[in-house]
């Protein structure tokens, strides 16, 4: 305090996040250059936009009012989608548990760990639509391809997050079970499972919800369900029927979102 009176006030400035001025200003210049390039590269054809808008209006006009007269087709499609989603969720979760145990660094031997991680990476590397195209080629059109697709999708997501949950468990509880002389299976049963069970249930509900949405999309690739119905309605320019299908899909997803949200909030 005493010496502050004698000297000039001490200045303070926040040190820059990037120390070197060359790198700092170089980065700013690069961002500006990139923005300019991206903007000029974007091929906005204003003629096509002008033509597109009235066309979109025409489609919307023919889509209104939605046509529910073929509700049997709609009903069987949405039912198939829900069934696909539920069956795939069940298989997907069961497989996910196995894969997650394999892919948890703290309990799996290095070799198994590598296999488990590889399965997850493969299951995650493609969007469900691409997986659906492959399965439709492999097993033909229909819900089987959809179920397989959604199973792969579930394993990629739940497997990865569950493996991470297993890696974060309390080591002490695991150690206690190992020290009773329990085998690997029994150690998983008592030392691992109780610790990740709430997470598994939460992930399972989330994934079922997610599968329901994805089941509509994979149908467009030919893998059964309401997506099939939707894409053929579009192909035949039945926009009013397509609109009815979209409304039903939205309704189903809203309901499933509400239900899963309610269940998951109860869990914690």
């Amino acid at each position: 305090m005493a010496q502050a009176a004698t000297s000039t006030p001490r200045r303070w400035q926040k040190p820059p996040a990037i120390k070197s001025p060359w790198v700092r200003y170089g980065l700013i210049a690069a961002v500006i250059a990139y923005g300019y390039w991206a903007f000029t590269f974007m091929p906005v054809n204003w003629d096509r936009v002008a033509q597109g808008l009235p066309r979109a209006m025409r489609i919307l006009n023919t889509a209104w009012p939605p046509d529910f007269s073929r509700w049997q087709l709609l009903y069987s499609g949405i039912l198939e989608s829900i069934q696909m989603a539920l069956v795939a969720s069940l298989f997907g979760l069961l497989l996910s548990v196995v894969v997650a145990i394999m892919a948890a660094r703290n309990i799996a031997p290095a070799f198994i760990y590598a296999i488990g991680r590889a399965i997850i990476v493969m299951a995650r590397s493609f969007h469900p639509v691409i997986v659906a195209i492959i399965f439709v080629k492999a097993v033909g059109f229909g819900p089987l391809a959809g179920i397989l697709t959604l199973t792969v999708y579930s394993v990629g997501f739940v497997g990865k997050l569950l493996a991470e949950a297993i890696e974060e468990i309390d080591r002490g509880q695991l150690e206690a079970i190992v020290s009773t002389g329990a085998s690997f299976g029994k150690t998983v049963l008592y030392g691992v499972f109780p610790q990740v069970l709430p997470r598994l249930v939460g992930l399972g509900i989330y994934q079922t919800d997610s599968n329901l949405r994805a089941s509509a999309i994979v149908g467009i690739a030919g893998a059964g369900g309401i997506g099939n119905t939707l894409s053929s309605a579009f192909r035949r320019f039945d926009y009013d029927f397509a609109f009815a299908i979209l409304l039903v899909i939205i309704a189903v997803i809203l309901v499933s979102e509400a239900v899963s949200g309610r269940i998951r909030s109860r869990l914690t």
Partner: protein
Amino acid sequence: MLKVTKLTKLYGPGRPALQDFDLVIDEPVVTAIIGPSGAGKSTLLRCINRLVEPTSGSVELDGVDITQLKGKALRDMRRRIGMIFQSFNLIDRLTVMENVLSGRLGYVSFWQAMTRRFPQEDIDRAYYLLERVGLAHYVNKRADALSGGERQRVGVARALMQDPKIILADEPTASLDPKTSIQIMEFLEELSEEFSIPVLVNLHNVELARRYSRRVVGLKAGRKILDGTPEDLTEDMLDTIYGTADRDPEGVLALQGPAGAQAGVAG
């Protein structure tokens, strides 16, 4: 019963956590292992049931060298070695009864373990042990609903459930208040006598070691520097084990005189 010979554990380059440690336990009494933090107490216990892999040396239980065992043989040996932990390590989301019965996991089948259908004699034994530690009214309570002292009593029951030949207790009282610490040590002493099981207990509270053990082993920097009775724990010996400065950096003990020693000394 238990014979540890030239046990050495190296975690990495540098000073071994445990070096040429010899110990023979042939009486079913409580043996306290004392020493400052990092002296190798925990490593010693974990090498005995191979939660930690010893670098060299041997650990024989009833003539079988544990350090050579693998797979099923190792698991069969582990189920005869009960362990009690500083942080209790109960399975939080399971009930008290499931936690106690988990001591039988080395004996029952996977199916029995999964469906919780344990043999009647296991359930009888679990009830007996829970009554013995005063928790029979809590059988269906979740373990994380219990207080620290109660949890450790479940931990003791779980270890005894294993029908162990020896019990290893790694700082069983370090997370507890003084009163519950005494209670746990009393249980260990009584149960050791009742089932005639030797108990090897790491303690950093010298006073508890004095009161509840019949034999005291002192560790310092991975080496055994004392193997005797609680009477051998003289002030000079404690200074050798802990170093005066470490024992009482603020000089509190010197100021309070004998009362300071009563409160116990944290290692």
